[in-house]
């Protein structure tokens, strides 16, 4: 069995599972946020159950429109907060929170071998920890909260093998954008993606979170990594629960194996309005920008901020452009302060925000006007994603983002920082 099948079989009490089978899976952790929780809570009440199956395994995070951006958002956050307090759930208040997918791994709430379901499509991020994690809707989450189980179809698994050593300024974002460019936005529809190869062993945990995060942008149900030394090091002082590491069998079957030699890979940029419209930065041409966003559940981790600060170091954000930085969590924020990174952003003329999803989904803190162009380290560049339907979003990693903020147009980090 492959990694996907191993984890799923263990969670439905079976020796083995095969792709296409419908199974009921026991879940280790359930997640909802200020947008999806209100609907989930309504359906939970409809079920007529009094309490969730295990309060320690249900997490709620206000992050999309929080700190509350307007009165309706405040009402949604309030509804979620009151439910979380009533049910004694794991709840993170503004000031102790951050973006859910940066926060949960950081707090040790997800561990290797878990099955995690979240009412948020980027729940797949936790695949970096060798967990089977997938996004669902609010009704699914309501049922999971009540019963501790949920139905799933066992997905086929596609194996991605990355060979070669990455060039400077190339990271997880470039690997995943390149992959989506290659297979398309439905290239892994209904499948789980298993990432492996020498470039993956070399990749940091933060880089792996970025890659797993965007499995959904290829239509994937999950994006998984094998647990290795780096994974175990990451969870060592964090894990809130005991865990079990699963490894694929040597004769594991995959529906497809895709090999990618990434030794010459350049930093990548996805053009509007699909994450698959990818070009190497050297072929981006002259694209003037009005805004650069550095943050989100894709690239709002410490390593991302370090890379951006390294490019920005001593330079100024282009006078015609707004650069907005959103650290993923309070912990990332504080660590970035300790390291002097926040100061470098401010010196460069960037705006630094409290952790929130904010502009990533066109919420607030950096909405685009008609005709404006933004390069963002987030994960989606659909029409209207960050504001006006006549605005444009380009996706890239933190190095290209910082370089572009300085140049006022899409630029390579090499050009700006050498």
């Amino acid at each position: 069995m492959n990694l996907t099948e191993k984890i799923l079989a263990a969670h439905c009490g079976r020796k083995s599972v095969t792709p296409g089978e419908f199974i009921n899976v026991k879940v280790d952790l359930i997640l909802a946020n200020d947008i999806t929780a209100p609907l989930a809570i309504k359906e939970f009440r409809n079920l007529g159950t009094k309490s969730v199956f295990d309060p320690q395994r249900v997490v709620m995070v206000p992050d999309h429109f929080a700190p509350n951006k307007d009165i309706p958002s405040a009402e949604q956050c309030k509804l979620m907060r009151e439910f979380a307090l009533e049910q004694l759930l794991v709840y993170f208040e503004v000031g102790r929170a951050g973006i859910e997918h940066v926060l949960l791994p950081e707090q040790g709430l997800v561990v290797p071998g878990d099955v995690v379901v979240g009412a948020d499509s980027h729940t797949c991020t936790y695949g970096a920890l060798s967990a089977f994690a997938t996004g669902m809707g609010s009704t699914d989450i309501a049922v999971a909260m009540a019963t501790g189980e949920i139905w799933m179809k066992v997905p086929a698994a596609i194996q991605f093998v990355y060979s070669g050593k990455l060039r400077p300024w190339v990271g997880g974002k470039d690997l995943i954008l390149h992959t989506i460019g290659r297979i398309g936005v439905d290239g892994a529809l209904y499948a789980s993606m298993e990432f492996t190869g020498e470039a993956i062993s070399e990749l940091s945990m933060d880089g792996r979170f970025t890659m797993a995060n965007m499995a959904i942008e290829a239509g994937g149900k999950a994006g998984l990594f094998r647990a290795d030394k780096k994974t175990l090091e990451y969870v060592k002082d964090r894990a809130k629960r005991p865990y079990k590491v699963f490894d694929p069998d040597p004769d594991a079957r995959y529906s497809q194996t895709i090999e990618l030699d990434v030794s010459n890979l350049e930093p990548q940029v996805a053009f509007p309005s699909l994450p698959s419209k990818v070009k190497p930065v050297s072929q981006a041409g002259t694209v003037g920008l009005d805004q650069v966003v550095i943050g989100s559940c894709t690239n709002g981790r410490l390593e991302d901020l370090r890379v951006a600060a390294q490019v920005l170091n001593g330079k100024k954000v282009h006078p015609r452009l707004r650069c907005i930085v959103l650290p993923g969590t309070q912990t990332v924020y504080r660590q970035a302060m300790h390291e002097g990174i926040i100061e470098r952003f401010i010196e460069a003329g960037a705006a630094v925000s409290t952790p929130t999803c904010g502009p990533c989904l066109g919420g607030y803190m950096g909405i685009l006007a008609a005709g404006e162009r933004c390069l963002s380290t987030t994960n989606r560049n659909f029409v209207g994603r960050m504001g006006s339907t006549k605005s444009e979003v380009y996706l890239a990693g933190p190095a290209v983002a910082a370089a572009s903020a300085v140049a006022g147009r899409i630029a390579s980090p090499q050009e700006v920082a050498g």
Partner: protein
Amino acid sequence: MKLRGTAHKYGSNVDTDAIIPARYLNVSDAQELAKHCMEDIDTGFVRRVKPGDIIVAEANFGCGSSREHAPVAIKASGISCVVAGSFARIFFRNAINIGLPLLECPEAAAGCSTGDIIEVDLTSGEITNVTTGKKYRASPYPEFLLDIIKSGGLVSQTKKKLARAR
């Protein structure tokens, strides 16, 4: 069960931001959401749509976020079912769970245009384009999902299961 309505045709990769933009997600009331359904790719949709109408789209319909608000908005706008070449998986689950029928059929998606009258037989999966006279067949639901649909959605099915367990 038979459905009949006018087709509203879209291309590939209609994402959940197009179905219901995030700026309207600070509420979860179905009728409120329906007011903005398809707004960012088809400003006239809400004005044109009539109860029973059918959305027809090409591949990967509903890609993007997990917002259940997307099928909720479509259903509340009066749409009776969606026919597409393929569906993004979270959208698919959500629609089944809330009782919005979906039919996967690339041939029907290619053979229908906006304004065509479409007839759908949910039991057999047969799709008829009354305007062109062509017939298509969607892949049937697996037994497991049919049970959820027949129970009236996931919540009703779970309720029954919980009652049995008690």
